[in-house]
């Protein structure tokens, strides 16, 4: 099993460790690690079950072309049973290029993956998560993109860790010149992130078109602040330019599974539901009593967000 893991700051990403947990469950996991790397990071990969590490560091080159070229070369000398990546930016770029090079498809947006005989089977939530399709590819190597939060990251722990122990063997993969397909990263900008992040927060407050105007999103932010929650949004108001894409929850945005999700002025389009329906508790406030969001809400309030939210914020402030 090849599992793609990227570096973020001085750690492997949470998504990468989730994928690694699945990879090691299915067989011997080799981490394809993208980033500068360090002994601490490689040790973490070992603790999470990587038997070995293939290290790629693309520096200021956009990773997709050189990494896909190097991996394709490696596949030629012995294909893995599965190449598992996440539904994330560099993962998608590498998977797409690699698949086109190898002449095989990509099983995208998987929520689970299983080995089946010599092949793989993947589950996909379709039609807003109301149905689950099981798919397979007729020919390997099998490249799968799994949605974030499909698996739970966990260190091996106990006896297995004691046997494995230490840093797994790390092999640095040479990145070939990708010629005309090369793009370079001239500058990197880190956007300041305030407060709890969507993927990690235990409470998420989101807003949708029902807020009526970009200014009304302030209500979502105030409630979020009061609850120490992350704030999210539907695709509709992201596309309308009310809030940045980083806040988008849904099929083409982030997947969240917080303890409590509060949907404000969100009707519950399929695109949105698939990104939040696995939240432990869902509270929805919407004017339209027939809004689909109510069919999955533990508590549905049929009402005007402009009336309910100020009172809710006030009540929480006075607690």
């Amino acid at each position: 099993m090849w599992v793609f893991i990227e570096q973020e700051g001085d750690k492997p990403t949470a998504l990468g460790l989730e994928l690694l947990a699945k990879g090691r469950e299915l067989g011997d996991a080799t981490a394809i690690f993208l980033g500068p790397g360090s002994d601490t990071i490689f040790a973490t990969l070992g603790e999470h079950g990587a038997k070995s590490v293939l290290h790629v560091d693309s520096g200021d080159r956009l990773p997709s072309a050189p990494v896909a070229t190097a991996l394709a070369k490696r596949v030629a000398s012995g294909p893995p049973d599965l190449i598992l990546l996440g539904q994330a930016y560099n993962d998608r770029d590498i998977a797409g290029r690699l698949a086109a090079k190898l002449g095989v498809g990509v099983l995208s947006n998987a929520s689970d993956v299983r080995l089946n005989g010599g092949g793989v089977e993947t589950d996909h939530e379709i039609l807003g998560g109301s149905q689950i399709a099981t798919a397979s590819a007729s020919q390997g190597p099998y490249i799968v993109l799994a949605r974030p939060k499909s698996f739970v990251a966990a260190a091996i722990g106990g006896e297995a860790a004691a046997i494995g122990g230490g840093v797994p063997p790390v092999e640095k993969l040479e990145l070939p010149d990708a010629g005309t397909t090369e793009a370079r990263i001239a500058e990197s900008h880190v956007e300041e992130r305030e407060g709890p992040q969507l993927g990690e927060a235990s409470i998420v407050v989101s807003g949708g078109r029902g807020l009526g105007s970009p200014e009304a999103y302030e209500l979502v932010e105030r409630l979020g602040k009061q609850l120490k929650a992350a704030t999210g949004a539907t695709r509709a108001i992201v596309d309308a330019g009310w809030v940045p894409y980083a806040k988008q929850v849904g099929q083409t945005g982030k997947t969240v599974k917080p303890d409590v999700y509060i949907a404000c002025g969100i009707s519950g389009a399929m695109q949105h539901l698939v990104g939040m329906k696995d939240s432990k508790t869902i509270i929805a406030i919407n004017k339209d009593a027939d809004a689909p969001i109510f069919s999955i809400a533990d508590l549905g309030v049929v009402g005007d967000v402009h009336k309910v939210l100020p009172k809710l914020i006030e009540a929480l402030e006075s607690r």
Partner: protein
Amino acid sequence: MNVIVCVKQIPDPATPYRLEEGSNWLIRPEEQILDDTDRYGVEMGLQIAEATDGTVTVVSMGPSGTGQGIRQALAMGADAAILIEDGSLRGSDALTTARVLAAAIGRNDFDLVIAGTESTDGYSGVVPQMVAELLGAPALTYATGVETGDGSVTIHRQTMAGYDVVTSDLPAVVSVTAGVVEPRYPTFKGIMDAKKKPIETLSMGDLGTERAPEQLVLSIVDAPERSGGRKIEDEGEAHEAIVALLAERKVI
């Protein structure tokens, strides 16, 4: 600069999607609309073409139906359209789609190919990268801003932490996010002009490419249903029920 924009006609997302019995392929009605995601790509293409005295050609694969979605792109201002329609392409996956698009694009002189990051109906999210690989071009992906210079293109590329400034030589493939530019609405003149613009229709035989290995849908089952709970009308006190539930869940 000659810009090619990949677009897709999709069933209106406002209507419930249905799958064909047996094949489990999405049923595509005669009347499909331009994927909203593609309006951003078309707009970006138009702005670059206008600034460089160039052209915009849209390329699309799939059953044409009424062709309404393609006309939408032409009405915005695209100069011409290439439509690849072939019964043998039903149920195509991302790689087959990319092979077809790349083959059709490769028949033309182009400097820049623009595509959305993923379609609204299929959302595999890997087609632009595959097209780039097949064209032997760099893929500058998830652009929130695009600028072209003398033989080069520079984008702001969305990252987990913020954004990167990424640059490459042309020709190149750029995938754009919604919000990269504000798409224009077709004018009356645009709509009238669109009726006269050329739409070239191609079939697989014209392209010299073949389908990728099949992906199969083995089964479809209903997901475990999450049932709704309590629904209350707000008569001025609904916030109290929310506070009570938050307290019960021990998050406040």
